[in-house]
């Protein structure tokens, strides 16, 4: 069938079919005669390999001739069902050509939702903006699922259920795109469906080349969705990527001519094996639950309100007047109230939680693509996909993961030959895992490549002036942290994938934005592990409430190392660099919070207050405050647009007594200490 589409223009046949059906509708069946169909049959035969149409037309001509004695209604039924069959035969291949010749908009795939795909792309999107946004969201989800399933398919090309899932995904997208008249997506999805159908009916073997084409298609559909979103936002959309060449490649893949592939894949040396995917990914969709879509804005509002509820509840239960009340019923009700409040808070928080597996699927895809491009053999394993975390954090994770994977594949993992020479398994392994650990989520990405080169990093850092030539010796972790500095790259060559030294800098910035931290363990010759520790949610943090004068401040626990009241012998004043404290053999600068923020402290004597050891970009320093109040779980609030750029303040929180406390941003406080 696809050969038909490639070679023959069926438009004359379609015209004939149209003409016959018009006569049937306008003048009734009596005006039709078998010769009409015979003429069509001859025309079809004359066009060459169009035998199905010729055969069908001939058969229908005979059917009508035989039915001449039957009642009119019966004759009409036979004629119209015959015409429908003919139209399907004629239109289906024509529809495949539709995007190469968009003016033949009459051609319409019979399998689509049945709404004509007019080429009027510029239909007023604004009218059903909500619907279209939902279409984009839903299609994106389908695409993510398809990507995931494709990788499974590549590993096991006979998995019927996997094929079906992919098929269903594309089918839904096609149907929806047809409904909204996004003809590019529709025709692309249709083409892919044809390909998948062949694979489903075992007429085509799924080779890595086929998967490549399919993955490319998902990327193009994504691009189209982005373009639609751009149009909705009133921007000029980027030009469509659905072109004849792509559709042609899909058709070629469908007809088994996989040797001639698209530009993206021709660059790949055909030597390597397909990349392996963690088996756990395959079963992921089993636990799909019933769900509804909710606007995240509403969820955020709910979170806010629940935050208020918790504060209100705390205010009530801490009201001093309650101390003198001995009514048992009131006490019981208050306890009940507290319990319900904390349940509501827990459930609300969990509503924003999504399994991290979605990000892992993206990473799996990335590993596969990058490994192929770098010509390295890489197996990918994922564990802990069901670990849940805040949706925003999960989404923000994709950039750091991308850069870390790039770094691993480009710098970390050796080529297969090198690995064999080193006595390693020629297939490298990249493992990604997630788990909950003491109220945080830990995502680690490890490879079994060559590991970080301590000396090379040191040399490069000295060269770039990041550390002093004859500075104090640094620990491994301190040295490894250097790779996160902007513009730092030890790669000898800049490749397409990495080496420009922007990647790891981005990783750290993202992780810090999410109030997390990143650590590196690396053993030369055995590999590198990046561990990212992140809070479970952005709405709550654990904080230490401290006092300076009348003001309360909150120090996020993740930035804290320890706190103590200094003794006079720990303190020293270094000429030109200000006050220092000696903590277990290390000298740390002291930053006085009252001076930094210009508030009246209770005491200016260091030995009468408390020093908090915090960390700014890996460098510890002491923060001087009056006193500590205690650790609290805190609902973070924004200070609003007016105060969003105050250095040293990350936001605020309403404390248990209803007052507002500022959340300190440790980096900002340390960096601005001189002023």
């Amino acid at each position, binding site marked *: 069938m696809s050969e038909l589409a490639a070679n023959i223009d069926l438009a004359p046949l379609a015209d004939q079919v149209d003409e016959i059906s018009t006569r049937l509708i306008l003048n009734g069946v009596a005006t039709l005669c078998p010769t009409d169909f015979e003429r069509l049959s001859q025309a079809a035969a004359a066009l060459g390999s169009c035998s199905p149409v010729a055969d069908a037309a001939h058969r229908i001509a005979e059917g009508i001739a035989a039915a001449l004695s039957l009642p009119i209604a019966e004759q009409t039924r036979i004629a119209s069902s015959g015409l429908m069959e003919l139209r399907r035969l004629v239109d289906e291949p024509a529809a495949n050509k539709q995007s190469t010749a968009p003016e033949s908009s009459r051609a319409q795939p019979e399998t689509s939702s049945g709404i004509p795909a007019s080429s009027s792309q510029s239909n007023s999107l604004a009218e059903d903006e909500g619907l279209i946004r939902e279409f984009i969201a839903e299609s994106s989800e389908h695409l993510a699922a398809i990507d995931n399933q494709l990788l499974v398919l590549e590993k096991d090309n006979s998995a019927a259920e996997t094929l079906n899932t992919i098929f269903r995904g594309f089918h839904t997208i096609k149907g929806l795109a047809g409904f909204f008249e996004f003809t590019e997506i529709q025709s692309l999805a249709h083409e892919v469906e044809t390909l998948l159908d062949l694979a489903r009916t075992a007429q085509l073997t799924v080779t890595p080349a086929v998967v490549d084409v399919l993955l490319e298609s998902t990327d193009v559909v994504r691009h189209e969705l982005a373009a639609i979103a751009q149009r909705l936002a009133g921007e000029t959309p980027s030009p469509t990527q659905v072109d004849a060449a792509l559709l042609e490649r899909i058709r070629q893949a469908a007809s088994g001519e996989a040797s001639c592939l698209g530009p993206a894949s021709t660059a790949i040396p055909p030597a390597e094996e397909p990349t392996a995917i963690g088996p756990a990914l395959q079963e992921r969709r089993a636990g799909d639950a019933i769900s509804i879509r909710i606007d995240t804005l509403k969820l955020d509002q709910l979170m806010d309100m629940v935050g*208020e509820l918790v504060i209100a509840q705390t205010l009530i239960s801490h009201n001093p007047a309650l101390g003198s009340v001995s009514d048992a019923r009131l006490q019981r009700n208050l306890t009940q109230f507290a319990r319900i409040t904390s349940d509501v808070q827990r459930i609300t928080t969990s509503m924003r939680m999504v399994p991290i597996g979605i990000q892992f699927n993206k990473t799996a895809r990335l590993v596969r693509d990058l490994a192929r491009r770098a010509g390295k053999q890489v197996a990918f394993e994922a564990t802990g996909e069901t670990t849940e975390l805040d949706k925003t954090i999960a989404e923000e994770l994709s950039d750091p993961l991308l850069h870390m994977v790039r770094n691993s594949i480009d710098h970390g993992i050796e080529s297969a030959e090198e690995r064999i020479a080193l006595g390693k398994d020629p297939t490298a392994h990249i493992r990604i895992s997630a788990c909950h650990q003491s109220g945080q989520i830990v995502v680690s990405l490890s490879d079994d490549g060559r590991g970080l080169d301590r000396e090379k990093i040191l040399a490069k850092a000295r060269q770039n002036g990041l550390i002093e030539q004859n500075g104090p010796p640094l620990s491994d972790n301190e040295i490894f942290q250097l790779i996160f500095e902007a513009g730092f790259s030890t790669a000898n060559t800049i490749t397409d994938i990495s080496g420009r030294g922007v990647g790891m800098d981005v990783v750290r910035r993202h992780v810090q934005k999410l109030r997390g931290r990143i650590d590196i363990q690396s053993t030369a010759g055995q590999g590198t592990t990046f561990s990212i520790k992140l809070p479970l949610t952005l709405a709550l943090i654990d904080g230490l409430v401290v006092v300076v004068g009348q003001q309360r401040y909150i120090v996020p626990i993740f930035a804290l190392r320890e706190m103590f009241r200094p003794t006079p012998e720990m303190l020293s004043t270094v000429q030109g660099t200000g006050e220092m404290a000696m903590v277990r053999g290390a000298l740390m600068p002291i930053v006085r919070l009252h001076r930094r923020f210009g508030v009246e402290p209770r005491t200016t004597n260091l030995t009468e207050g408390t020093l908090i050891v915090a960390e700014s970009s890996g460098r510890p320093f002491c923060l001087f405050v009056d006193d500590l109040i205690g650790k609290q779980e805190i609902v973070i609030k924004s200070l609003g647009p007016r105060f969003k750029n105050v250095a040293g303040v990350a936001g605020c929180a309403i404390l248990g007594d209803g007052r507002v406390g500022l959340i300190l941003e440790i980096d900002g406080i340390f960096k601005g200490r001189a002023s």
Partner: protein
Amino acid sequence: MQTTTSLLTTQPAILPDMNKRAGKYLIFNLGVEEFGTEVLKVREIMGLQDITSIPQVPLYVKGVINLRGKVIPVIDLRLKFGLEPQEYTPRTCIVVMRTRQADEDLMIGLVVDGVVEVLNLMASDIEDTPDFGPGVATPYLTGMAKVKGRVKILLDIDQVLSGNELQGLSALLQ
């Protein structure tokens, strides 16, 4: 009827403006001076409470307070208008207003010496702001009202808060 028509033709620009100015005003005082602001924009009036100060902001920005779970900025109107600072008294209160700044509704608290009353002002009670001469910028004054021999200065609160000072504030915070 005749007079109205002639008014319309001779002063077309001023009449709708005058009508717009009529309405209910919350009158508060800073020292001996009385100010009025549209009552529709006032959300609530609350006693003084603990204000959390924010570092690196102009003196007149007192900080933020918790208004039933919302964190809103508080501005000392005395300092904002360049008047002498004064000790807060039991009469001192915070007027919480809804203002519109850069296409965004924003709640803001104003510390004033005391709230006097709510007045219903007719268009005829309100006069245009006199020209105070060069060097006195009065874009946030909508007019002056004379009631029972006393002058109330009417403020356009959006202008008071969106003036260059606050823009300067954002620049300062960058």
